[in-house]
């Protein structure tokens, strides 16, 4: 039995007068990996940032419609609660450069002033780093600054930081576009693991990646959700001509 975790109902997002996400209706089931694809500037990032209310941080940015998380409209919730339930990983790895690897993992607690006993912190750090397959690489250098790690390790650290907060949904905005191929494949492997506990929404530019990691794929074009279906169907038998054109590489 599949249960819906996120449901977007007539969602619109704007930068000033610029209408960049147009009337998106989309239902996302729990513990699935959703790939969001589309040409540059089609509103993928904007839609993703709308889901955890990061969109409105940009001056002049507004949104309307509904995005339901477990039936509750995130546009009506306080953004802080939304962001605690919906974690986010960015295009460029952005660990806190002033914090150690250890503190980076528990940054969500640490910086929010939530005091945890040392033993509990240790558990969270080990568990989160293990989940992102980083524990063995960094367990002897937890006190080093996060910025000492390689790009791929930094990105996994950022995923661990999001995972440590035990969110329900994880948003990824082109998480591998700044990484080398080996780091990319490590991160891709993680998605299969993470799917057991979280719902993943992954914006990607890379069609092979979408095909490899996702259960469902959404195709955006000029701010509209053109097609949303099983990834297999999307890649073998897309219904919309715009999707076909994109997948066959007629525009990028």
């Amino acid at each position: 039995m599949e249960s819906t975790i996120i449901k977007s109902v007539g969602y619109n997002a704007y930068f000033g007068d610029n209408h960049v996400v147009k009337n998106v209706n989309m239902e996302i089931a729990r513990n699935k990996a959703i790939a969001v694809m589309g040409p540059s500037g089609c509103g993928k990032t904007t839609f993703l940032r709308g889901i955890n209310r990061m969109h409105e941080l940009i001056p002049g940015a507004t949104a309307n419609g509904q995005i339901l998380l477990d039936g509750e409209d995130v546009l009506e919730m306080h953004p802080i609660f939304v962001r605690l339930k919906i974690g986010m990983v960015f295009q460029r790895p952005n660990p806190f450069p002033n914090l150690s690897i250890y503190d980076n993992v528990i940054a969500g607690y640490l910086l929010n002033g939530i005091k945890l006993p040392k033993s509990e912190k240790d558990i969270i750090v080990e568990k989160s780093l293990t989940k992102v397959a980083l524990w063995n690489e960094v367990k002897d250098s937890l006190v080093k600054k996060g910025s000492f790690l390689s790009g791929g390790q930094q990105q996994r650290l950022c995923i661990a930081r999001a995972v440590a907060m035990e969110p329900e949904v994880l948003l990824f905005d082109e998480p591998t576009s700044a990484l080398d191929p080996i780091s990319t494949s490590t991160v891709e492997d993680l998605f299969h693991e993470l799917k057991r506990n979280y719902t993943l929404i992954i914006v990607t530019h890379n069609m092979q990646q979408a095909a490899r990691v996702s259960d469902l794929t959404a195709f955006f074009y000029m701010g509209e959700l053109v097609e949303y279906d099983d990834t297999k169907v999307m890649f073998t038998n897309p219904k919309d001509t715009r999707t076909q054109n994109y997948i066959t590489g007629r525009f990028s």
Partner: protein
Amino acid sequence: MTAKKNISSKIKFRIGISGFFKGLVILFAFSCVIPLLFILFYIIQAGASKIKWSFLIHDELSDSAGILHAILGSFEIVIFASLISIPIGILCGIFFSENKGSKFTYWSRLAVDILQGVPSVVVGVIAYAWLVRPFHQPSAIAGSIALAIMMLPIIIRSTEETLNLLPDSLREAGYALGLPFHRVVLKVIVPCGISGILSGVMLSIARVAGETAPLLFTAYGCTFLSNDITKPMETLPHLINKFATQGDPKVLDMAWGAALILLFWVLLLNIFTKLITRKWKVQL
């Protein structure tokens, strides 16, 4: 053939010009250092003989009180000025950097720039009009406030510029973890920019430590050790000014000694600034 010869002679000529320019640049760069070396040399030569412990509390040659009260007075006034200007300056710098686009920021920033250009003697006169005349008495705290006004623009602009250099992705990382605005600022932005903020603070202290004009009619000066900030207080620059203009060569020597100490204080502040800037620099 001749064309080639032409080119090669032209290139030789250009290499010559280039060498000449290099020499000129080095010469001018060096000539910037000469005044500093000259000042240092002269002050050390004239003031070094004065530097003994007794110089602090009693000078035998001129039979006057030492300069300890002026050193402590300077410390005290600068510390109070810092207590006033550092929190206001840093918060204001944060505000400017977090509200880049707004009209209010634009005009406030302009005001801060103008404040930076206000001559120190004018700041002194204003402090006199606000804080000395109404109370019919010069006071150390009036001097502190005058210095604080001079420190503000330096702290504000260096804080703002430091924070503007931090990538937005840091803020976003904070927000995405559910941090409220004040925690993003205090726990992410400020710690990452701390070295730049501190260096602005230290430079502003070094800048005002030697200011005389704002203190002339505010802290005024006195001849003994005083801890009461509502009363006049002696400071090093003021003492130097007083001693240097008395006409007595023995007292003038004391001015040189005091100048040496002031110079070293400012120099130490600058070196210290460099050190903490390097030590606390966050590698982005």
